[in-house]
Each structure stands twice: as C-alpha cells, then as structure tokens.
C-alpha cells in the first residue's frame, strides 16, 4: 500500500493558509466569508491540475513556503506573479507560473516571492487534505476555524495530499495579471455623510496602501476624508469590499476575513469585478478610485466572469 503523500514544510512563508471558495451563511455568528483572496488566480490554479472547483489550494503572501514532497508523486501548478524554484536531486530549476509540473519523492518547491503582488496559489492534483467547517476548508486565523485548527502553517508541519497521483498530460495557459488603473466603487450607505469637497478629494486623489494590510483589511493613507455628520454609526453588518472612513479620515477597505460588524461610516463599496485586483495591491502602491453606478457594476461583473470562464475553458 502506498504511504500517504505529504509536503514537509521546510519554511512556512509569511502567511500560508489553505483556501477554497469560502464559507457561506455564518456572518450572523460573526464568521466572515474567508476563501481565496484572488478568486480568479485560485480558480485557474485548480483548473490547471484538473481539480474540482472548490478544492482547497495553498495560498501564500509575499514570501511563500519551501516544501518537500514525502513519498509519492504529484502534479502541481502555481498561479499569480510568483518566483519559485523546483529542486530535484539537488538541481535547482526555475519554476514557471500557469503551467503544471511533476514532482516526486524528496523533490522540493521553494516559493521565493510574489512579485508586485501579494497573493499566489499552489494547487496539487487531487487537492490538499483540508478539514471542513461549515462547508469550507478555508483557514480563518482570527476565529481559528478551518483546516490546520484555523492556524497558518508553521515550520516542520506536514500538509497531506488527498489523492496525489501525477497526471500524464501537461496543462498551461498564457496569462498576465492585468495592471490596475482605477478601482471602481459604488456609493456606500453613508455616502451623504461626506461633503462634496470630501467626495472630490476621495475620487480625485491617489491613496497609498499602508503596511497595515492583511486578509482582514487594508488601510490607506493620503488626503484625509472629512465627514460632516458623525464619525461613528450604530454598528451594523459589513461585506467585503466596503470602504469605511473612521475618525482619523484614513479609509479602511474590508477584505475577506473582515470583522462582520463595524461602526464606521461607509463611503463606498468596491465592485465585485475589481476585488481580485485590490487584494493584490502591495504596501506603498497607489490606488485611485472611480465612481460607477449599479448597472455598470453588474455589467463589469458579467465581463469579469466571462473572462474568467474563457480562461478556464482554455485550460480544459
């Protein structure tokens, strides 16, 4: 009988977690959606290794993990803008994103960095063995929910593979992660808390992504956004993509692991079509916002979805 294949973690990376499409229907308990931050790259990665749509992939940020495969063979793929090496019999080969590669026992994958972006994904054919909580394996480190007891991976841990057999054919796709010019937003429910001048400042200026950035949220720095009414509202529900402006005037964007309730005025909400882009913005990069209306946002989502489906179809 074959011993179960697993990766030994030689170096865990900065924030390596298993993620899938996320956890529904738990906001009312205080549990956010979670799931892969960059959904398109997650989907592409799973498609490359012929996995079903909701299989967990290993998500990493900035510096990824250094992994060694113990027993068995595996077909892998990495998506994002990622530099990585494949080490076989002490020979180091430069890895290429968006194409499958095979590794065998004692081979290593060393994910060095995400370039000009935050997140990347590693998928293996058959998938990682995740633990499902409320329909999702996604790791939520705040509530300690999901696979690996809800914790990010650390050194010397093992990540088990479900059904790691290499597939005999190669798959690849030519894909370039597009640059952002604008992040498009819809008016938030407290839009009228802000004066015309504040709105002009918000849509007329660049903001810089600060270092206070994680899976929960992204704080921006730039011109202060003043509010005319109140800097607090009675706490109410949040969704990912909401832009809150607290008393200090610096916008905060809610990301996939956000607190489910918040009490700061909402100036805007990022449209679904641009969410994958905003999450890939690194500290120090510039953000410009552009106001759109709901029909436009819905159309842009349709286009985004069609593009994603086309990409996935090309891989099939």
């Amino acid at each position, binding site marked *: 009988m074959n011993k179960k294949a697993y990766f030994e973690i030689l170096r865990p990376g900065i924030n390596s977690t298993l993620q899938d499409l996320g956890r529904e*229907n738990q*906001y*009312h308990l*205080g549990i956010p959606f979670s799931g892969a931050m960059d959904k398109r790259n997650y989907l592409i990665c799973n498609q490359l290794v012929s996995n079903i749509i909701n299989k967990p992939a290993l998500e990493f940020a900035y510096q990824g993990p250094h992994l060694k495969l113990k027993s068995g063979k595996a077909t892998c793929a990495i998506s994002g803008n990622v530099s990585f090496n494949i080490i076989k019999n002490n020979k180091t080969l430069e890895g290429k994103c968006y194409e499958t590669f095979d590794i065998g026992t004692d081979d290593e994958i060393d994910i060095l960095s995400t370039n000009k972006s935050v997140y990347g994904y590693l998928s293996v054919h058959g998938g990682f063995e995740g633990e499902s909580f409320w329909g999702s394996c996604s790791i939520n480190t705040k509530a300690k929910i999901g696979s690996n007891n809800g914790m990010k991976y650390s050194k010397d841990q093992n990540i088990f593979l479900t059904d790691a057999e290499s597939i005999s054919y190669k798959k690849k796709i030519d894909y370039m992660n597009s640059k952002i010019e604008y992040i498009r937003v819809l008016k938030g429910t407290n839009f009228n808390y802000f004066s015309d001048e504040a709105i002009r400042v918000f849509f007329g200026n660049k903001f810089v992504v600060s270092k206070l950035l994680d899976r929960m949220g992204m704080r921006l720095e730039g011109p202060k956004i003043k509010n005319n009414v109140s800097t607090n509202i*009675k706490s109410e529900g949040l*969704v990912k993509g909401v832009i809150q402006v607290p008393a200090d005037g610096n916008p905060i964007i809610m990301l996939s692991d956000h*607190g489910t*309730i918040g009490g700061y005025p909402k100036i805007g909400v990022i449209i*679904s079509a641009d969410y994958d882009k905003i999450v890939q913005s690194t500290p120090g990069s510039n953000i410009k916002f552009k106001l759109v209306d709901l029909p436009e946002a*819905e159309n842009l989502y349709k286009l985004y979805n069609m593009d994603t489906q086309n990409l996935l179809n090309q891989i099939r």
Partner: protein
Amino acid sequence: MIKKISNLGDSALYCDFGNDVNQTINSRVIKIFRNLKKNTIKGITNITPSYNKLIISFDLDVINFEQLEEKITQMKIEDFGEVDKRIVKIPVCIDEEFSLDLKRLSEKLKINENEIIKSFLSKEYFCYMTGFIAGMPFMGDVNESLRLNRLETPRVKVPKGSIGITEQFCNIYTYDSPGGWNIIGNTPVEIFDKFKVDDPVKIRPGDSVIFYKINKKEFSNWNE
C-alpha cells in the same frame, strides 16, 4: 417594517429599519432574519442582522439586486413568536484580576464599585446581535447610570471571556481580541464553540441574558 432598501455594493442588499436602537425595532430585524433563514431565497449567501439594519449578501452569479429586492418586498412575513427565545445564565467573576476597568468606571461615574456590580447584575439583557468576532454577543440595555464611552485608546488585547460595557450595551469577548470596551469581569463559559457545528453560539440574537456572580475559586474550577 423595513423603512428603506438600498444596495450595499453590487452583491448585498441593505434593509434599513430606522435609526433608533431598541428591542422593538431589533425584534423586527430578527423577525425578517428568521423568515429568510426558513424560506431560503436562492442566491443568498449571508444574512447579517444588527441593531436596526439587516444586510443580505447574495451571489451575483445567481441573482441581482433588483431581483432580490422584489422578492424581499413581496415576501410573506410569518411571525414565529418568541419560540426561540431563551434565557441564558452567564457566570461572571469580578475578581480584580478580571475587572480591568472597574476602578475607572467607578471614578468616572462617581459610583462605588459594589454599586456598579450590583446595578449591572440586577438586569436581564437582550441580545441584539452577534458578530464582529465569532459569537460575540451585543446586549443591552445597561442602566443609564452605568453608561460610559469606550476607552480612548483601545486595548491591543482584551482577554477571552471578558465582559465589557460601553454606552447602553454590554458584550463578551469570545476570543482574545483588540477592543475598547470597559471590562468589568470575566466568564469561564465558552461562548463560542466551533465544534458544536449546529449551534456554536451560547447566546443568540433575541435571547435574554442574566449574569450572576461567581468567586475566583468557582471560576478556576469551572467545568461545563
């Protein structure tokens, strides 16, 4: 019942029940929440009740704002009465190790510490909502004499189990978490248990909560 429906982004619907915070309005929010939980509309991914708002998130691949708004507006609202209403008793230890802000409250409110605790324990609290962090209950209303703002500088880490008050509300920190509420005690009871998959929260919106005092020894030996 719902005063206004608007969109929150392109994949959530925002139901506004007005600006007041009281049990009557919150009961309306919870009523709609329960109706939606029972008669699921395809495409809804999350429903978040709060004091006086209800946010319904949906999957834009399945339904859009206009379609969902129509369904919500036409929804037949059933009254489930108070079937689900429970009274939950929560032990609290006021030992100085846990009552981090009792002294501050006493000084600011000019009420002695024993009176504060007596006043706090004298009431039954209504749970308006759970959230922010997993399972955290937002309850009210505390006696007017005990109402105070948040700490000016929030703590980086409020210990798990801490019971805090701010303005008319009180809460329980279900995990170690940053926070700015005035901490008056700690409970040994597990308020959120992820392994109770069907019912992980001890206190649900609409429940009534009674706090009772335990001593340090009872706290240390607590065993559920």
